[in-house]
């Protein structure tokens, strides 16, 4: 009778522990592993197969990462309207996810952060308008590309207000400011171009300091030219002194080719296990779980103790970034006898690393608190139901322990840019992809690129190796 009663009293927490474990038992692979087939197809440049693999893995229109990957794959498949639809759906979903679901947060508290819908890191959100503006540009629709420019600038202005005074590495997107400035100038919207260009200059100074990405050499010439066009004599003098070697204007009868070279694959997050020692008597010493979790999180870097002091080894899983440095390091672009070399303008991998590093203390504390809660719950189940119940509870809670490894992994490792001044007319563009030692790894050719006098043409290329 006593045993029965103990069992009955243990049913509720046992079910709770069961809930914590069962829901997540099915999918214990990391996000990168789940997207393995898609990535394999991408490396083989088979975008249709990549899209099929993505849909097979789970076509969920409520999942931001599905929509982002879909948007990007459709972009490479040159299905630009569909790509924009997917990206727009992602943007709307991200906006909706500003409202946090308390129930999902509660589930995450006892299972894993994976229970909370993913709403994208700021640098990932900023790259949505980049791909959307490319979609419009490649369809010859400058007006809608400019809408994306304004959206990007609005997002970055909101981000700047949000992180003002904080030590956040990513406070503005230098590349997006630069690219939008060029497009505003293309449309004759010089004031907007001027604002974006000056913000690009400031943001690149920070990029150079934090991410090791210096401003492109052409930026100085752009500033000088716009200052002159707008009649800002003082600014023109300042920029002429600051960038004495930069060229300002296109020679008559010439246009410009801008090559955007997206290289490699963004880093993936992998799961690593941490074992944190709980020492005898500590459970009674810390009445508040938050305080206890803070103490345990501090042991992530290592803790010395006598074996006899050990009460329990708490296992928690946290994400760790693995970079996938591309074999190709830069590209040589040749057209009409003019040769240029691409330079890094956006280091996606570095942005990703900074984003994770900045959120890591919060992730660690939350993870340890969750682990501790599950541990205390399991101990209670054991106390109420006996050793087997406790063992079962332990197994289930351990199975639910998963790091949040999600991210937009189809993004490139980084984006490079080259600018070539070319005589007007139809041009064939030859691309040579070089490794770190300058050896040719691959080549590509793009025919019939039209260069119009006084205008810019844009060419986007992706390498996966």
């Amino acid at each position, binding site marked *: 009778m006593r045993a029965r009663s103990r069992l009955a009293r243990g049913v509720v927490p046992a079910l*709770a522990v069961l809930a914590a474990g069962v829901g997540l038992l099915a999918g214990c692979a990391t996000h990168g592993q789940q997207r393995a087939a898609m990535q394999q197809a991408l490396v083989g440049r088979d975008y249709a197969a990549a899209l099929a693999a993505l849909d097979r893995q789970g076509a969920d229109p409520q999942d931001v990462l599905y929509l982002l990957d879909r948007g990007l794959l459709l972009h490479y498949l040159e299905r630009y309207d569909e790509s924009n639809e997917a990206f727009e759906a992602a943007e709307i979903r991200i906006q909706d996810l500003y409202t946090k679901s308390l*129930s*999902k947060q509660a589930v995450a508290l*006892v299972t894993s952060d994976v229970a909370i819908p993913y709403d994208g890191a700021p640098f990932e959100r900023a790259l949505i308008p980049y791909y959307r503006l490319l979609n419009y540009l490649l369809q010859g629709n400058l007006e809608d590309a400019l809408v994306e420019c304004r959206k990007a600038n609005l997002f970055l202005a909101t981000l700047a207000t949000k992180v003002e005074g904080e030590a956040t590495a990513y406070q503005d997107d230098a590349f997006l400011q630069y690219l939008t400035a060029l497009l505003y100038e293309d449309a004759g919207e010089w004031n907007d171009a001027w604002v974006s260009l000056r913000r690009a200059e400031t943001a690149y100074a920070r990029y150079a300091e934090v991410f090791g990405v210096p401003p492109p050499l052409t930026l100085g010439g752009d500033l000088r030219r716009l200052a002159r066009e707008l009649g800002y004599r003082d600014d023109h003098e300042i920029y002429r002194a600051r960038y004495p070697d930069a060229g300002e204007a296109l020679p008559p009868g010439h246009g410009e080719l801008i090559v955007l070279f997206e290289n490699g694959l963004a880093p993936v997050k992998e799961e690593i296990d941490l074992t944190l020692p709980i020492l005898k008597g500590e459970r009674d010493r810390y009445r508040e779980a938050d305080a206890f979790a803070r103490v345990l999180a501090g042991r992530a870097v290592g803790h010395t103790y006598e074996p006899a002091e050990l009460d329990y080894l708490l296992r928690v899983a946290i994400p760790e970034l693995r970079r996938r440095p591309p074999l190709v390091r830069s590209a040589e672009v040749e057209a009409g006898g003019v040769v240029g070399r691409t330079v890094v303008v956006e280091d996606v991998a570095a942005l990703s690393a900074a984003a994770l590093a900045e959120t890591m203390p919060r992730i660690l504390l939350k993870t340890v608190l969750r682990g501790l809660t599950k541990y205390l*719950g399991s101990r209670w189940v054991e106390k109420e139901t006996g050793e087997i119940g406790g063992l079962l509870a332990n197994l289930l809670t351990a199975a639910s322990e998963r790091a949040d490894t999600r991210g937009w992994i189809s993004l490139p490792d980084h984006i490079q840019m080259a600018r070539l001044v070319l005589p007007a007319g139809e041009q064939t563009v030859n691309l040579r992809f070089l490794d770190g030692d300058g050896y040719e790894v691959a080549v590509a050719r793009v025919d019939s690129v039209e260069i119009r006098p006084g205008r810019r043409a844009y060419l986007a290329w992706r390498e996966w190796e």
Partner: protein
Amino acid sequence: MNPLRFAVLILVAVALVGTTGCAKRTVTRVETDTTIDLSGRWNDTDSRLVSEEMIRDCLTHPWLTQHLTAAGKKPAVIVGVVRNRTTEHIPVGTFIKDIERAMVNAGSVEVVASAIERGDVRDERDDQERFASEETAKAFGLEHGADYMLSGEMNSITDAEEGKKVLFYQVDLTLINIETNAKVWLGQKKIKKFVGQGRYEP
């Protein structure tokens, strides 16, 4: 955390997740002039209201009576380009159609076809010349040239912070006398919207 509270928390959470996942989709048919604001973005109601109000304003200004007195007939107006300079992909074509509709329905001006539409009409006339009977085929050279061109732009300003957003739209339209380049009417309409979004839901 007390283990019992821990257990109750999970069960409540799991139950809530379960119930939120069962929401049914409902579709209700509504009148097309019903105002429904979902996201705060520019929508069909904005397009209709702005075009109707601006054209009403346009047609009550002196340029119309001055033209009627001078020419003795209704002015022919062509709706040209309305540039979208906002942060949204506004279907400008719908807005232009709304403007044309408001003008045609007012009856005081003649709206002539746009360049693309004219091309289609000319193709049709060319077709008629070859295939239709002489009595019914329409002749070339009788088109009405526009006296005025209406064009403009849409701008927006967004101010957003922590779940609150103020959207400000401004539409500027200009009516230009094609012969003299004189601006005979300048219209402006502003719309301001506040969009609030809660931080938490069950």
